[in-house]
């Protein structure tokens, strides 16, 4: 693989296609405006620049203006949502993603009522429309576009369309669980390390660095292969929770590190000092003062991590360290299909197309979300 799945890691550089939202958390008082205006006027978005999260108003707001509807008083997330609604591409691909999710959720219905065959039912001697699903040399049949074997068969005579939907379910579930793990623990680790520093940081940071310093695919495949042999505790080796868990843990630092940096910066800010001086409990400061200001970073990471997790699952499954037989995922289907690239290219390319479409939809939606939260990333300037 080229660079490992996670493209956004190095140097805190960017998400899939750009950089992380450089949050504006300083209360951008109107007095800050001038520097903006003088630098480059095409960048002078008065106030609109001060997007994402803003601390409680320590600085005076301009007096309500007499005329016209105004953006004053509209929350940053509301503004972001308004911007996202204007981004038709992001909305379209968001809809595509939802459609894919729905179709995959309905896999059992398709399997039961349309294809009349289960996802793991092998049928090497079966026929469809008078043709056998496997040729004498074992080459599976291509797409028939009929209820049976709509997308053809796999190497064991199983219905590819049924497996595609079930596989999609598996891929999405693994991606989803991994993302939840990443978001919950990444945020937690970042908050703790960044806020308490000292001993907590001294323990958490090297742990994150350690995981982070391995290419995710190599780490994932090594751990995945080992765990697939005997499982962990009550979880069997072929459970889909194993790859989900591995992927989640591998990517915790990818969120934890930026959050930690963010928190380190936020904790030095005046409004946090103010809370501290008021005698607020550290946990309360973390949850009610710091976390809300890191939320837009976290939101930006959700689609990014989901897309990346689904991709890593495909890599692991391709290398035999992810989803184990007889379960299918898009990764295992591509892996199985590549053997027949010459004779039945659809076997690998159809699951591949599904995988790419899904990940692409999430990424485009994610980019839209990022731009909505950080509109300056979009402003176009001429040199």
């Amino acid at each position: 693989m080229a660079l490992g799945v996670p493209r956004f890691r190095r140097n805190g550089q960017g998400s899939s296609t750009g950089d992380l939202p450089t949050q504006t958390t300083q209360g951008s008082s109107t007095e800050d405006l001038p520097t903006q205006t003088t630098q480059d006027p095409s960048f002078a978005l008065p106030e609109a620049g001060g997007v994402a999260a803003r601390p409680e108003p320590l600085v005076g707001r301009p007096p309500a203006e007499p005329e016209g509807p105004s953006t004053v008083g509209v929350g940053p997330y509301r503004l972001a949502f308004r911007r996202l609604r204007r981004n038709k591409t992001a909305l379209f691909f968001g809809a595509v993603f939802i459609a894919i999710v729905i179709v995959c959720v309905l896999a059992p219905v398709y399997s039961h009522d349309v294809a009349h065959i289960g996802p793991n039912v092998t049928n090497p001697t079966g026929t469809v429309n008078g043709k056998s699903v496997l040729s004498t040399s074992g080459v599976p049949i291509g797409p028939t576009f009929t209820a049976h074997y709509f997308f053809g068969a796999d190497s064991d005579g199983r219905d590819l369309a049924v497996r595609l939907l079930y596989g999609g379910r598996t891929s999405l579930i693994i991606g989803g669980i991994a993302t939840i793990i990443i978001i919950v623990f990444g945020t937690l680790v970042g908050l703790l390390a960044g806020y308490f520093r000292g001993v907590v940081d001294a323990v958490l940071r090297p742990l994150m660095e350690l995981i982070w310093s391995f290419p995710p695919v190599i780490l994932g495949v090594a751990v995945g292969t080992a765990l697939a042999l005997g499982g962990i505790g009550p979880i069997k080796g072929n459970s889909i929770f194993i790859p989900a868990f591995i992927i989640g843990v591998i990517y915790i630092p990818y969120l934890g590190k930026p959050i930690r940096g963010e928190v380190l910066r936020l904790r030095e800010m005046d409004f946090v000092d103010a809370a501290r001086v008021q005698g607020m409990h550290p946990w309360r400061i973390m949850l009610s003062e710091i976390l809300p200001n890191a939320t837009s970073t976290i939101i930006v990471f959700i689609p990014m991590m989901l897309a990346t997790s689904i991709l890593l699952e495909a890599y692991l499954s391709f290398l035999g360290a992810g989803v184990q037989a007889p379960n299918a995922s898009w990764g295992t289907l591509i892996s199985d299909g590549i053997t027949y690239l010459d004779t039945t290219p659809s076997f690998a390319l159809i699951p591949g197309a599904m995988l790419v479409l899904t990940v692409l939809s999430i990424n485009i939606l994610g980019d839209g979300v990022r731009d909505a939260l950080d509109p300056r990333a979009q402003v176009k300037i001429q040199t």
Partner: protein
Amino acid sequence: MGRFIVRRTLSAAALLFATSVVVFGIFEVIPSYNPGRAIAGRNATPQTVAIVNKKFGFNQPFYRQYLNTMKLIFTGQIVDYQDQLNVVSEFKSRFPATLSLVIPAALIWLIAAIILGSVSALRAGRFADKALMVMAIVGVSIPVFLLGAVLLYLLAYKLTIFPNTGYVSLTSNPAQWAYYLILPWFSIALLSIGFYSRVLRSNLLDMVNEDFVRTAKAKGLSQQRVFRRHVLRNSLMPILTMFGLDFATLLGGAALVTETLFNIPGVGQYEATAIGNLDVPPILVGAMFTAFFVVLFGALIDVVYALLDPRVRLTG
């Protein structure tokens, strides 16, 4: 400079140590891992397993096993469990193939990314920019094995322009070498071009708003000169950092998927096989190999940084 080298060497040693302990440790803590059984085969009798365990020292405490293994690695005598091949010589003989794959691919993606990123920034919002945006986002959404598969299907099977898989060494036949490697090169490069050019583009657009760029314009420099001398130069650093690390991990075997797919006998392919077999010695050597390159290129990039930016001083 001397201090820099010393400190970097020390940190390299520390990283190699940490990596080796961790990789070794991972396999120690995994409950289902039983190397003796793995070597003896699934159907081996308990007696055979016991003999194997004794022979490889799997009964010894962790630190003894670790020290033994390290000794074997640094004396070049370590063998893998699967085929009893000497791991170090295996890495040596496979490394040229990995270099053949990675260096041209990296050059393709870096040069293409600088050109495309610049074009995209200069034409921000116009067609070229949007096309690149699409390419970048598709690039991060396709796993490399799928892109490789699509290229293979289209160019090797359908159009038969390129051979399907395999490898010819550069020394035996340079033309064939390139011919066989073009598809793998582009499989690796294409996906990175989009991402790198996108990062460069956003750095460029940030840089365009810097005060000193405005000064350069105010001095009456031509647009090209402002761009080349002031904007581009300052924007290259973030991508160079990314590049150093990506390149290092690729050399260390991170190209394993591509090497497996295209059947290129590089270190990555060896590592992939070893990982599949839970064959600790090659995995361990591979991890240390990667760590070595990561440190080496980290230091090199820092030197380049210091050359490009006088504010940067070389420190450990």
